[in-house]
């Protein structure tokens, strides 16, 4: 093989290796979805988000005619104490569901903490 041929072969090999590397890890695949580790946030996503909205501002993803879920991000903290939030989550107030029969007391507390944290944002 001539020197030029060797060089061309080497360039091809490097190009193939780079190509293979790029194919193995495409740019869009390098981003991983954020993992929600906070239990309160996880519970909010499942039990509250559909009606109170992803940001807790009352912009429902599941609109039901005649039903408007309050904006949790704008609750008056003097009226909506943690104890009151816990009680509403537990016992419900139609159409607000009563989660007391499916969530543990500890989970309701975590959810209430998460909702209180939303108020400040």
């Amino acid at each position, binding site marked *: 093989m001539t020197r030029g041929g060797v060089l061309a072969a080497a360039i091809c090999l490097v190009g193939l290796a780079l190509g293979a590397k790029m194919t193995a890890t495409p740019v869009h695949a390098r981003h991983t979805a954020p993992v929600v580790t906070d239990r309160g946030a996880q519970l909010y996503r*499942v039990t509250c988000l559909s009606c109170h909205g992803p940001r807790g501002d009352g912009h429902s*993803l599941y609109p039901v005619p005649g039903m408007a879920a309050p904006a949790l991000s704008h609750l008056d903290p003097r009226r909506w104490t943690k104890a009151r939030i816990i009680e509403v989550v537990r016992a419900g107030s139609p*159409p607000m569901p009563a989660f007391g029969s499916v969530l543990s007391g500890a989970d309701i507390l975590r959810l209430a903490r998460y909702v209180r944290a939303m108020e400040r944002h």
Partner: protein
Amino acid sequence: MGMTRREVLRWLVAWSGALVTASPVHALARLRPVRAFTPRLRAVQITDLHYGYRGSGNPDPAASLSQALYQIQQLNPELLLITGDLIEADADPRVRERRLEDIWERLQGLRIPLLAVPGEQDALMDAGALWQRVVGPLHFHESSGGVHVIGLDNVSRGFLLGRSERDWLAQELRSLDEGVPLLVAAHAPLAWYYPAWNWYTYDGPAASAMVARFPHRLFVHGHVHQLLTDEVGGVKGFGARAVSFSYPLPDSRHALALMPIPMAAGAVDTGLGLRDIRFAGTFQITDRPLAPLAGSVKP
């Protein structure tokens, strides 16, 4: 030889038993070959009628409803199973009451046995009070043609069953031989298909675990307004087409508000339909699109 009263009674009981055993009727009952009862069922499932709906999802929902009722009459099932959202919700309880009374009357006019579970539009606003007044119990266990039909309420207190309904379900299922055919119906899926649109039942997996021991089982639901299959705990759920309007599939990358797919006036492929459910040894479901109304027959 004298007998005490107790001895006389014992003698009478012993001889009456012998006489009954020896009687020809009893002998016939024992000797006649037993013809095994084979459960059979021909049912139709409709869902999400949203009676009173106005919007871009269906420019003429009254015509769609008439089509559905006409098709049901043609199929002439032994049971009409309705999986919720009979009405479109409204803030005014009088409007909800009028709608539910009207649609229930129209369905009763078909003169087909009806079983119905509530949807959130029917029951969430007042925790099922109106439903119980107009339609009946929120959850039930009935038998039709030897098929046990369990209706679940996973909407009236939120998208969940709750402890008391789970306990009730466990008790009902405990009393059944696992060989019996079991048709379970609810409005929302038991699986956590997409909680952001309330397409889930919080404690649905617990209910699935109870149902899973029955080899002849079928779980059908509404709420999703399209043909969907979901699964939790080995129990498949079959979401059905609506009678009113159709929904898109959720896209988990973008949290968008759920909106009906707009339907053009006079559309042929409406995305609406009903479901034929049969049991003859095994369950079979056939999903049928709403066909154009033939003639002018209106129930």
